[in-house]
């Protein structure tokens, strides 16, 4: 009704988040999955030349797909934030320092710090196509690739998606003003699906970047991260943290947020995290409700483990969870090969191995 528009300011803004139901119905498939390897803070995964590459801090490790001891491939000066494989066997490695390094292949040794005049401040995801095209998701123009929480608390929307032709050295800004783009998926028609973490949605960007990003999946129950092509069609989407009403409320309170960011260490903010329950100083551990005179402990989770399986139309059809009482939280990246999905749980310090027939 027309008068609802007039009444809405008096009703107060409803702080709501979508329920985890339907395809997001909770289960414990991530929590009960086999650990492929335990490794500190895995950030990115890539199946490359018959090996699984894992980015862990500053180290790039290569694991045989059948399991076994890793081979250290490379050590960088700063932490790795993204990985992509080039068709000629080379690698594109995004670093927290704000650059993309090309390792191996015909572009070996090349360092990209800027595309079309836009500095790669926070390379959060990389994708390539066969024609030597590199797509770079830049999370923010202000914060580094490992500082998403700061960008979220500042309600930043300075992310961009860049396209770089490595052969012609021709760069272009495909989209700007994105709220922490954290995942890229190249579609067969050369359009790009981008996960916009802080706006909890996926958008489609045309290959030439001439039209505005179009939402294709909105109002997700978590903050989306990387996307990976699924073997049976469609895609896998990692959701690195859950949305909860308390964080949504904090996001509406600017003065509180500024005070919190200025005075409290980042791991203790009321903000989404990759893992929680590690310190007694963390907030929300003393929540509780009284039911039938009995005090029952309760607190909304700040971290969660969640991967969604999307169909060809990018509609969620199934999901894998590690729930509030689990540890395999903060899923950052996935890679599927031979009926097995590998998932990097940054909070759980492990790479998980899941039979995709079950998902």
């Amino acid at each position, binding site marked *: *009704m027309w008068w609802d528009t007039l009444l809405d300011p008096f009703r*107060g803004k*409803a702080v709501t*988040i979508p329920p985890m*139901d339907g395809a997001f119905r909770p289960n414990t498939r991530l929590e009960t999955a086999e650990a492929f390897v335990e490794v500190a803070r895995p950030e990115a995964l890539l199946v490359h030349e018959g090996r699984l590459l894992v980015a862990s801090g500053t180290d790039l490790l290569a694991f045989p797909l059948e399991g076994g001891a890793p081979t250290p491939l490379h050590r960088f000066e700063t932490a790795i934030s993204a990985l992509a494989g080039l068709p000629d066997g080379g690698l594109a490695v995004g670093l927290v320092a704000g650059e993309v390094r090309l390792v191996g292949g015909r572009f070996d040794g090349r360092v990209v710090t800027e595309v079309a005049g836009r500095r790669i401040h926070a390379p959060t995801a990389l994708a390539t196509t066969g024609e030597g095209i590199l797509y770079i998701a830049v999370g923010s123009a202000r914060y580094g690739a490992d500082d998403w929480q700061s960008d979220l608390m500042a309600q930043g929307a300075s992310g961009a998606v860049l396209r770089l032709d490595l052969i012609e050295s021709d760069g272009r800004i495909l989209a700007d003003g994105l709220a922490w783009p954290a995942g890229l998926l190249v579609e067969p028609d050369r359009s790009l699906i981008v996960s916009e973490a802080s706006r909890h949605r996926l958008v489609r960007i045309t290959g030439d970047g001439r039209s505005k990003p179009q939402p294709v999946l*909105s109002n997700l129950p978590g903050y989306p991260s990387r996307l990976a092509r699924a073997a049976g069609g469609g895609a896998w989407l990692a959701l690195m943290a859950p949305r909860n009403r308390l964080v949504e409320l904090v996001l509406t309170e600017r003065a509180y947020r500024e005070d919190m960011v200025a005075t409290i260490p980042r791991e203790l903010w009321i903000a989404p995290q990759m893992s929680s329950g590690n310190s007694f100083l963390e907030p929300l551990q003393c929540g509780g409700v009284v039911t039938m005179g009995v005090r029952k402990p309760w607190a909304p989770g700040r971290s969660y483990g969640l991967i969604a399986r999307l169909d060809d139309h990018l509609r969620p059809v199934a999901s894998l969870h590690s729930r509030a009482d689990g540890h395999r939280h903060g899923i950052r990246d996935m890679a599927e090969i031979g009926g097995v999905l590998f998932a990097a749980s940054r909070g759980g310090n492990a790479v998980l191995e899941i039979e995709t027939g079950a998902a």
Partner: protein
Amino acid sequence: MTLIETRTLSKSYRGNLAVDAVDFDIAEGEVHALLGENGAGKSTLTKMIAGVVPPTSGEILLDGQPVAFDSPADALKQGIAMVFQETSLVPSMTVAQNLYLGDEKFLNRLRGVAISAQQFLQSLNFTVDPTATVATLGAAKRQMVEIARAVRLKARIIIFDEPTATLTPEEKRHFFALVRRLKERKVAVIFISHALEEALEISDRITVMRDGARVITDVTANFTRETIVRAMVGRTLAGSEASRKVAVRPAGDKVLSVQDLSMGAVVKNTSFSVFAGQITGLFGLVGSGRTETAKIVAGVMKRDFSRGGEVALDGQPVRYNTPRPAMRDGIVYVTEDRKLEGFFETMSIAENFYSGHLAAGQNKLPVVSRAEMTRLAESWSRALSIRAINPDARVVELSGGNQQKVVIGKGLVQRPRLVIFDEPTRGVDVAAIAEIHHLIEKLADDGLAVVVISSYLPEVLKLSDRILVCRQGRVVEEFSPLDASEERIMYASVH
């Protein structure tokens, strides 16, 4: 000492046995919990004891003597009072006036009434202001007044039907303290509830009923939550296994998204989604807020004015203050109470269908078209296999099953995208149940988003592609019919 006893007490409605030869007894100062799923016959049994409905057969013994009550007033004279969920107090009168209603002196002094009410309430240790208007009281205080009235009329047996459903935790504590005080005064209390933990906490004995019959009666200490649930559900599994689903329809687009919806103490922060091409089953016991949630979505009821949550249709937030805009957007709610809300009983089938057509704003011209009405009636009567003596038959003359089909048809002529069926097969014969089930399945196959609210677990398991369970005003759990069992669903729905 046994106060009241029933022997092979039965009640049937048009040949359907609601209560089947139940033996039940309660002693002085005893709290006896009566448990069972919806339609188990708990309310009918207690209504017979309280004189609200007469039994078909069997007898009621009060202090060992057979009694027959003509009315609730008659039962009250003998010391039996029943407190319903919706209290029978006069909201515009004060507490004192309500206490003495129907018992006033010829020359009544308000002050005198208030003073004696004050003394009486103090004797019960009830903290209610006798001069307060009933409309200003909370649910628990209203119940206190209702109980005080029963005690004042020397009730020896007080029956509570779902007393805690709408109470806050604080009010519940008051209520339990009050039941304990009644017990000390040697008053017998029959307590109908879906809250198993409450029953386990407060009662001395528990009786579980199922399908109109008594399953088990024992002292509370011998029960656990699990044994009660098993006794409540305990249907022969063979029947439900036979109709078990082997595959579910895949979800289409998200048609409806309900987030943190609230309405008073009935619907509390509930969230769920409904997808196209699927049947979403909504199961819950009485007072779980299922119907109210559906009515808010369809614009029949209103959510809380302030912070009432969000309802989104195809991703767009909507707020319907009346059903008409909801119908225009393609939402149809098929009511559980068809006689009161479902159809115009003195109108013909054709007129009823046409009213649905008009309500959805599908009439192009501002005149009633007889030809259109006939065409609609013919096509929908055929599609729904409505059997009537003649096409102009009034709906009131049809059987229950055909009446229900008219209600459904009245909704479907509106060409909806989301159909909410509330208890679609209640009071419908077996043949019509199969037809209605087939119709519901076909709607989902055609790509519509369908919600089925049902209290009958086998129906929920048979029809649903997803099962949502409501408890205390919110959706608390989701099951897939492929791995759900009646016991698991019931376990989630009780608290």
